[in-house]
C-alpha cells in the first residue's frame, strides 16, 4: 500500500493494538471493578476443555444404536434422554435430536452466530463459526457437503437446521453397516463430531 496516496480523508488510522494487549486491557478493567475471579474462571475453562466434547455426544449416539427404547426416548425428548447419560446444562437444555436415515440427511448450522450443543459436543470448531460454513449451509448444502467429502445421492433429502432460537440440535447418524456385533463402548469410538453436526456420514 502506498503511503502518499491521499483521498483527503483518513485511510491510515492508528494501527490496532495487538490482540494480547487488548485482552490484557479488559482483564485489567474487570479486575479493578472486582469482576475477575480468575480461580472460578479457570475452573470454568477447564470444564469446557476437560468435560465437554464430542465424546459425550458419541455416547448418546452409541446408546441409541444399541437400545431401541432409548432411541425412541431420544427422538421424542432429546434433553431428557441426554440427561439420562448425565449430560446437560447451558446450550443443552432444549435439545432436539434429528435422525439420519437412508433417505434423509440432517445438517446443523447457526447462520447468525455460533449456537452449538455444548454439553454433547463442547465448543464448536473454528469452521463452524466461520462465514463460509454459515453462509453456504442454507444456500447450497449439497454442494457444500460434497466439498467437505460427503457426496449424497440426489434422492437423499437434506434437512438443514438453523439453530436461531433456543433449541440446539444433535444429529443421530446411521449406524455403519460393518459395525454389527460391536459392543456399545466400541461403537462410541466410531462416532465423530462431524457426523453429529451432519457434515459427515459414517
Amino acid at each position, binding site marked *: 500500500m502506498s503511503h502518499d496516496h491521499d483521498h483527503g480523508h483518513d485511510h491510515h488510522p492508528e494501527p490496532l493494538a495487538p490482540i494480547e494487549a487488548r485482552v490484557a486491557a479488559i482483564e485489567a478493567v474487570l479486575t479493578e471493578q472486582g469482576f475477575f475471579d480468575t480461580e472460578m474462571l479457570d475452573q470454568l475453562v477447564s470444564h*469446557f476443555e476437560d468435560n465437554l466434547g464430542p465424546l459425550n455426544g458419541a455416547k448418546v449416539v452409541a446408546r441409541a444404536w444399541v437400545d431401541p427404547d432409548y432411541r425412541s426416548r431420544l427422538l421424542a425428548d432429546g434433553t431428557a434422554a441426554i440427561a439420562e447419560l448425565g449430560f446437560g446444562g447451558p446450550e443443552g437444555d432444549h435439545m432436539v435430536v434429528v435422525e439420519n436415515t437412508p433417505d434423509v440427511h440432517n445438517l446443523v448450522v447457526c447462520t447468525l452466530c455460533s449456537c452449538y450443543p455444548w454439553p454433547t459436543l463442547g465448543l464448536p470448531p473454528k469452521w463452524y463459526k466461520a462465514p463460509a460454513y454459515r453462509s453456504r449451509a442454507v444456500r447450497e448444502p449439497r454442494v457444500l457437503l460434497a466439498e467437505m467429502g460427503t457426496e449424497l445421492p440426489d434422492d437423499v433429502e437434506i434437512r438443514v437446521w438453523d439453530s*436461531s*432460537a433456543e433449541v440446539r440440535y444433535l444429529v443421530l447418524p446411521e449406524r455403519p453397516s460393518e459395525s454389527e456385533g460391536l459392543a456399545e463402548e466400541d461403537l462410541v469410538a466410531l462416532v465423530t463430531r462431524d457426523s453429529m453436526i451432519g457434515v459427515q456420514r459414517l
Partner: protein
Amino acid sequence: MDGIHDMGGVDGFGPVDAPPAEPVFGEDWERRAFRVSMATMMALQPGGGFRHSIERMDPAHYLSSSYYEHWLTGVATLLTEAGLTTNEDLDERSGGRFPLSRADRGVAPATPEPDRTEPRFKIGDRVRVREWHPSGHTRAPRYVQGKRGVVTRLDGAENLPDFEAHGGGKVLDPTYSVRFTPRDLWGEGGADGATVNVDLWERYLEEDA
C-alpha cells in the same frame, strides 16, 4: 439489524477450511478472551445484548478478525456502554487502537409487552415471516424475512431477545420450527431436494393468508 453477522445465503466466502482436529483454544489469548467474556456476562447479564454487541461490529473488522476477537470487541463495547471504562482508556491501556462496535440503534417497545405462552399456530400451519428489518437485535435472519413456510414443531414459550437486548426486560413468546423449501427462500435459484428449518419466535410470524 441487517448486520454482517447475518450470513445465511451470502455468496463469495469460498470453501470451508475444516482441519480434522483442533484444540479447544488455539492460542492462549483466545482462552483469555473466553475468560473475560464469561466474566463480563456474569457481571452485566446482557442477555441478547452480548450477541448484539458483536452484530454492531464494523463489518470490515468483523470479517478480518477471528471468533474470539469478536467476543472481545463485544464485551469491550458492553463494558464501555455500562460506564466501566472508555474507549480512550482502553486505547491507552492496550497501547494502540482498541476498536469497539458501533452505537446501539435498537429501541425497546414504548409500553411493556405482555408475555404470550399459548401458541397461536399449530403444526402444519402455513406462516409468513414478517419483514421489518429492525435497527436493533433480532433472531429472525434476513434470508427468511418475508418468506413463507410451514410450522413443523412447537418448542414452548421463551424469552424474546429482541426486547431484552434493548432494555425491554424478559418477555415470553412461543417458539416454533418453520420449514422452508429452497424455492420459498431462493426462488428460481433454489435447488431441489433440501429443506431449511429455522427456529422462530411467534412475534416474527404472521398467518399466510
